[in-house]
């Protein structure tokens, strides 16, 4: 079942770029990554899902219901953590959380205490007096306190120290195990890599790639580094599937995508001193997609 279905979603801001023809689905129970550089349209997409802004054309449904029409009903089961946290400054943390909880049809007081303990958050401070990171924690507790079925996170980790990030990820994984679907927007690839099963890459308002993280890593490219015993013909490895070929003396570096047996045969035919085959990390793949169209 699809928790989120986005079909040809387009949002224009006058002349400024919004998003064009964005389509993807998020399955129930998965952690879906949504990556792209700043200003690519991640937040625009998310704000449309929350019906903070309305699409120019196309549609988005959550839990099978149209976002615009059934907004309030849908939001009953959504937890949202915005990238920048702003709350009523003169309120105490606990008062804000209680205010937030008062919108939902369940008793959240226990969960508030629990979450605050996990995130090490002082409930009796004024929001005004909190540091950026602590405000983020308020945001996290606020987003999770009603045990939502769908958690939408917009660049959630900025401002959190590594220890808190770790705790936060564990919290998310726990919620996910309990059945929550998570949409994680980020430009920090390592966190997407750590948490997500599938990922959509957005660039300049368009989805340019949507795949499983594992597929992105496996199928696409392997990084080869070969140390030769003697110099070989520069064009020996120059065939289709090989990119970023770089020969420095006896060391050859390249990325390969395609049938692995083929490249292994090629290598076996020459004398080599050493061989490294590595998975490129997401960063490399990501950069690869970004640069491709430039």
């Amino acid at each position, binding site marked *: 079942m699809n928790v989120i279905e986005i079909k040809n979603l387009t949002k224009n801001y006058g002349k400024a770029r919004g998003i064009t023809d964005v389509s993807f689905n998020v399955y129930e129970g998965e952690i879906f990554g949504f990556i792209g550089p700043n200003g690519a349209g991640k937040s625009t997409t998310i704000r449309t899902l929350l019906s903070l802004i309305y699409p120019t054309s196309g549609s988005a449904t959550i839990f099978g219901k149209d976002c615009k029409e059934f907004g*309030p009903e849908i939001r009953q089961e959504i937890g949202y953590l915005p990238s920048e946290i702003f709350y009523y400054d003169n309120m105490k943390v606990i008062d804000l959380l209680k205010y*937030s909880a008062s919108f939902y049809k369940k008793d959240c007081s226990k969960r508030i205490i629990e979450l605050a303990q996990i995130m090490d958050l002082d409930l009796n401070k004024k929001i005004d007096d909190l540091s950026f990171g602590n405000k983020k924690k308020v945001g996290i507790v606020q987003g999770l306190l009603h045990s939502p079925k769908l958690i939408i996170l917009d660049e959630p980790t900025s401002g959190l120290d590594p220890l808190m990030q770790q705790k936060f990820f564990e919290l998310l994984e726990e919620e996910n195990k309990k059945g929550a679907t998570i949409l994680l927007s980020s430009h920090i690839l390592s966190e997407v890599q750590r948490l997500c099963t599938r990922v959509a890459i957005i660039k300049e308002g368009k989805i340019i790639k949507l795949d499983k993280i594992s597929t992105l890593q496996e199928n696409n490219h392997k990084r080869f580094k070969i140390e030769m015993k003697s110099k070989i013909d520069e064009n020996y490895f120059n065939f289709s599937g090989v990119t970023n070929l770089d020969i420095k003396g006896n060391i050859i570096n390249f990325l390969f995508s395609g049938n692995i047996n083929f490249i292994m045969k090629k290598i076996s035919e020459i004398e080599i001193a050493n061989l490294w085959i590595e998975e490129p990390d997401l960063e490399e793949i990501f950069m690869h997609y970004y640069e491709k169209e430039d």
Partner: protein
Amino acid sequence: MNMFLHELKAYRKSTIIWTCSLVALVVLFLSMFPAFSKEATAFKEIMKGFPEPVRKSLGLSVDSMSSILGFYSYMFLYTTLCGAIQAMNLGTSIISKEVRAKTADFLLTRPVTRGAVMTSKLMAALTCLVITNLIYLASSSIMASVVATEKYSYKIFFMISITLFFVQLMFLALGIVISVLVPKIKSVLPISLGTVFAFFIIGMFVATTGDDAMRYITPFKYFDANYILKNTSYEISFIITEIGFIAFAITASYFVYYKKDVHSA
């Protein structure tokens, strides 16, 4: 209900301050009445010395000034000015403060319709105004009965006093419309003070011309105290105009607020 209470709490302080100022104003003014009425004839002579346009623009009516109601209706102009600023501030800020403090994202991602948000805020603003008016009415009634030297019609006193609320309603509606139409209001005071004073000055100008049609332009001239004094009633056409304006403004506000994109900070 939660949003309504939240808003009430947020405006508690400012409502208390505004109410106190209005009460202080009426107490101060009316406490001058005994001294004034003793020397009424002398004052009348002085006032007759003023050119007529000046008297009219300040709302000074020589004949009625010596009675408590006449005196009250003169000072009441300044009460409505004060009250108008309160209402306009309230109207302009109650929606726009969420944009300014960047809390709109929080509020509108809760499971509520924008209509419900608007209604709660509107009701909270109305409640603030009602509370202000009740306290004002009570304290001005007491004060008037203390300083009055002869019998006066409490009905007329009440009718004049309650127009404070009617004028406030118009400015509240105007403020709300402005706050949903302007994408981002950086500061409320310049807008609310500017608008209220503009209408107040138009009001002074209209009073000197005596042109009835012009009175429709400014809320300050919808309820003419002298007319109420003479007829013990309001002018129906102005009441209809007021109701029409408020209905239009509030409907438009709901409509715009529903359709509006809420942009991130």
